[in-house]
C-alpha cells in the first residue's frame, strides 16, 4: 500500500482536486479522497506538488530504433506493405530510452513500426517499466501502422518500385483493403475448401476492416484527405499521426471516422510541401470540435521531455491547461484503446502516476519528482 498525500490532482477524469489523497493497493488506484483515514504508513508527501496521470505517448518507436536510429528494427522495408509484422518483436526493453521515458513521466507508449512502408505492421501499447515485453505490453495490437507521403515514396521510389508517387501510395492501400475484404468474405464461406489459406497479413487487415483496430496513419497536409477518403470508402477507423497542416482541414477531420489526431513532433526546419506548415495550435480547435487530440514524441526522434514542451506550445496559443494535460493522458489512452487501464486518476485504474514540482506544460521548470508505474515508484528525483 502507498498513499500520495496532499497534492493538487489533475485527474483527467473528474476535474482538478485542489488537495487530495490517493491510496494505491496491489498496483491499482484503490481510493481517492480529501481525507486520509486509511492508516497506511507508506506515504509520499505531495503537499505543494502537482499530480497527474502517467503520461501516455501515442506515437513512439522507443526500444526499436536504438537511441539515435543506429539500430533500426521497426522498418521492414522488403515490401511496400508488411501488415504481418508486429512491433512487439522488435522492442529492446533494456533500451535506455525506457529509463529516459520514465524520468520524463511517460509511463505508456504506443510503439509503432516506422514509416518506410505504406503498411508497416502492428502497433502495441507498452509500459515504460517491467521485466520483459510480455510484462510491459498492455495491449497488442492497438492499431495497424500506415504511412503516406515522402517516407514510403523515398524508400520505394529510389528502387523504381511502387509507390513512387502519392497516387501509388493510395493504390497500395486500396489494393490491400480490397484484398482483405475478399479474404474476409472467403473466410466466412460455409465450404471449408473455399476458405483461404491462413495469411497473417490479411488477418491483420481484417482486424481493421472489422473495426477492431484503427489504421494509424503517418500523414501531413493534404495526405490527410487521402486517409479520410479511403477510410470512408471502406468504413474503417483511423488516427491522423504527425498531422502537420491539420488547420486546413478542420471540417474534413471532424466529419470523419477519425479516432484521434496525434500531433508532433514540432521544432523542425520548414520546407515547402510536407514540412511546410506546422500548426500545433490546431489541437485547440480540433479538441473543441470533439476530436480526441494527443501529442507525440516520435521517440527517439524527439527526447521524451519534448512531449511536455510541445504541450506547452498548445498552452502558448491559448489551450486550457486541464484540457492540454488531457492531451498527454486520457486522450491518448482512449485513442489507443487502453483507457480501461491507464490515462486517468480514477479508482480501479493502474496506479500510473507522475508527481511534478510545478505544473507541466505551464511552468517551464516543472520537474518530475516521482514516476509511479503499477504502484511502484520507478523514479524519484
Amino acid at each position, binding site marked *: 500500500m502507498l498513499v500520495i498525500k496532499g497534492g493538487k490532482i489533475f485527474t483527467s477524469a473528474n476535474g482538478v482536486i485542489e488537495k487530495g489523497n490517493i491510496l494505491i493497493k496491489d498496483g491499482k488506484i484503490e481510493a481517492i479522497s480529501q481525507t486520509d483515514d486509511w492508516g497506511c504508513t507508506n506515504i509520499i508527501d505531495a503537499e505543494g506538488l502537482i499530480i497527474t496521470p502517467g503520461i501516455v505517448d501515442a506515437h513512439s518507436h522507443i526500444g526499436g530504433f536504438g*537511441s539515435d536510429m543506429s539500430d533500426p528494427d521497426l522498418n521492414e522495408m522488403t515490401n511496400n506493405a508488411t501488415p504481418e509484422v508486429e512491433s512487439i518483436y522488435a522492442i529492446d526493453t533494456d533500451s535506455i530510452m525506457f529509463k529516459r521515458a520514465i524520468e520524463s513521466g511517460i509511463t505508456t507508449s504506443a510503439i509503432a513500426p516506422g514509416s518506410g512502408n505504406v503498411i508497416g505492421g502492428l502497433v502495441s501499447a507498452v509500459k515504460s517499466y517491467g521485466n520483459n515485453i510480455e510484462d510491459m505490453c498492455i495491449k497488442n495490437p492497438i492499431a495497424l501502422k500506415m504511412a503516406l507521403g515522402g517516407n514510403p515514396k523515398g524508400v520505394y521510389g529510389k528502387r523504381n518500385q511502387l509507390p513512387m508517387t502519392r497516387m501509388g501510395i493510395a493504390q497500395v492501400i486500396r489494393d490491400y483493403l480490397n484484398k482483405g475484404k475478399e479474404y474476409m468474405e472467403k473466410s466466412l464461406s460455409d465450404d471449408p475448401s473455399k476458405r483461404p489459406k491462413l495469411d497473417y497479413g490479411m488477418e491483420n487487415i481484417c482486424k481493421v476492416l472489422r473495426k477492431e483496430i484503427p489504421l494509424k496513419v503517418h500523414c501531413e497536409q493534404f495526405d490527410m484527405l487521402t486517409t479520410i477518403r479511403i477510410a470512408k470508402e471502406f468504413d474503417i477507423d483511423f488516427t491522423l499521426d504527425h498531422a502537420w497542416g491539420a488547420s486546413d482541414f478542420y471540417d474534413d477531420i471532424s466529419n470523419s471516422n477519425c479516432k484521434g489526431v496525434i500531433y508532433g513532433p514540432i521544432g523542425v526546419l520548414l520546407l515547402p510541401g510536407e514540412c511546410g506548415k506546422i500548426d500545433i495550435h490546431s489541437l485547440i480547435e480540433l479538441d473543441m470540435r470533439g476530436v480526441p487530440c494527443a501529442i507525440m514524441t516520435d521517440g527517439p526522434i*524527439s*527526447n521524451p521531455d519534448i512531449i511536455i514542451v510541445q504541450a506547452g506550445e498548445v498552452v502558448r496559443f491559448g489551450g486550457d491547461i486541464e484540457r492540454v494535460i488531457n492531451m498527454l493522458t486520457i486522450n491518448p489512452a482512449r485513442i489507443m484503446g487502453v483507457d480501461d487501464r491507464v490515462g486517468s486518476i480514477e479508482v480501479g485504474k493502474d496506479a500510473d502516476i507522475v508527481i511534478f514540482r510545478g505544473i507541466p506544460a505551464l511552468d517551464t521548470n516543472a520537474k518530475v519528482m516521482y514516476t509511479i508505474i503499477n504502484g511502484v515508484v520507478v523514479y524519484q528525483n
Partner: protein
Amino acid sequence: MNEEHEDILIKNGNIHDGNGNIFYSTDILVKDGKIKQIAKEIELNEDIPVYDATDKVVLPGFIESLNIWGCTGPGWGDNDLEEHSDPITPQMNVVYSFDQDNMMFQRVFEYGITSAGITPGTSNVLGGYAAVFKTFGDHPYKMLIKEKVGVVGSVSRTTTTVYKDRNMAPMTKMGTFSLLREYLKKAEAYSTEMPYDSKLISLKDVVEKKTPLFINCNTNSEIVALNHLLKDFDVDLVLTGAYGVNENILNMIIDNKLKIIFGDVTNGMSAASQNLNFDVVRELINKNVPISISSTGDRMSSGKESLLWNAILFYKNGINSSDVLKMITSNAAKILSVDDRIGSIEPGKDADIVVWTNNPIESYDSKAEAVFINGKNVLGVWRTGSCW
C-alpha cells in the same frame, strides 16, 4: 515590404536588458532603427508612434548562435552547406548559400529570434566561414550583420561518416585531428609572398587570432583531444555542441579562455546531448566562461521553436532565468563578435526588441506580441511573391 527603419516609443515595459539588469515600467525610444534612449516617462515633442508595453516583458531579440536556416531546401536534396568535395574547406563563405526567402519562410522571429549565426555544415574537418544575419528582410546583404565571424569545423564522428566510405582521410578520429593540425601548421608558415592558397589564407587569420575557430565536438574526450592538439597554436577557440564538459576540464576551459556554444538538447537523435551536465554548466557560468545556447550540433534540423525550447531546458535544469537570457542574447552576440550591434537593450544598439506577454523562459503562457527588428514591428508581415 517596407525596409525603412522606423521610429517608435515602446512605453512602460518591464525591460530585461540582456546584460542581467531589469528596468521596470521603463520606456525605450527608437530612432532610425537604433535604440536612442532608455528612461522612465520619456517626453516627446515630436509625433512618434507609441507601443504600449505596460505589464509586458520586453526582451532583446534572441540570437541563435549557430544554425542552418536559409541554406538548405527547398527540396530535400538541396543542400548548400556541405562542400564534401574536400574535408578541408575553410575558405567557403556561407554568405553565398544564404537565401533570404528561405530564412523568411522559417518565421523564427515569431519566437523572438531576430538574428542568427549561420554556419556551413559540421561534417567537414574545416567547413567554412559562419556569418550573422537578421532573421527578417528581403535582401541577404541587407540582413547580414557580419560575415566571417568564425571558421567552423568539426572533430565529431560526422566527418569520418562522410569520408570513410570513399577510403579517404579522415577515416578515423586520428585522421580528423591529423588533418586539422597539418593545415593549421601550414597556415602558420604561410605568407602572402607564397603562391595563392585560399585555404591557408583563411586559416592564417585563425592562427593569428583574427578569426575565431569554432569546432563541433560532442564528448569529453573530443574536447580534451582538441585542447591537446591546439596547445601548439595560438587560436581563439569556441567549442560548439560541447555536451561533454565535466568537472575535470573546468580549469582547462578557464585557463585556455575557451568559449562555448552549447548544442541542441531537444533533438533525441544526438545521443551525445543527453550527457550534458547542468551542474557543470552552472559552474562555468559562475566562472564567467562565455557561454551561449544554440540549436547546433551534429544534426541541425531545428525550427523556430527550438532555441526557446533549449533555453527552457537550461532553465528547467536549474540555470537561472537571467543567465539563460544572457546565453541567448548578449553572450551569443559577444561570441559571434557582433555585440557592437545586437544582443542587449542599450542606447546605440540596433532596435531588435521583443515584447512578450510573460517571460517566455519561465512560462509557456507567453507569446511574442510585437517583434521589432531595426525598430520595425515585423510580426504580422508576410513575404509575398516568393518561390518559397
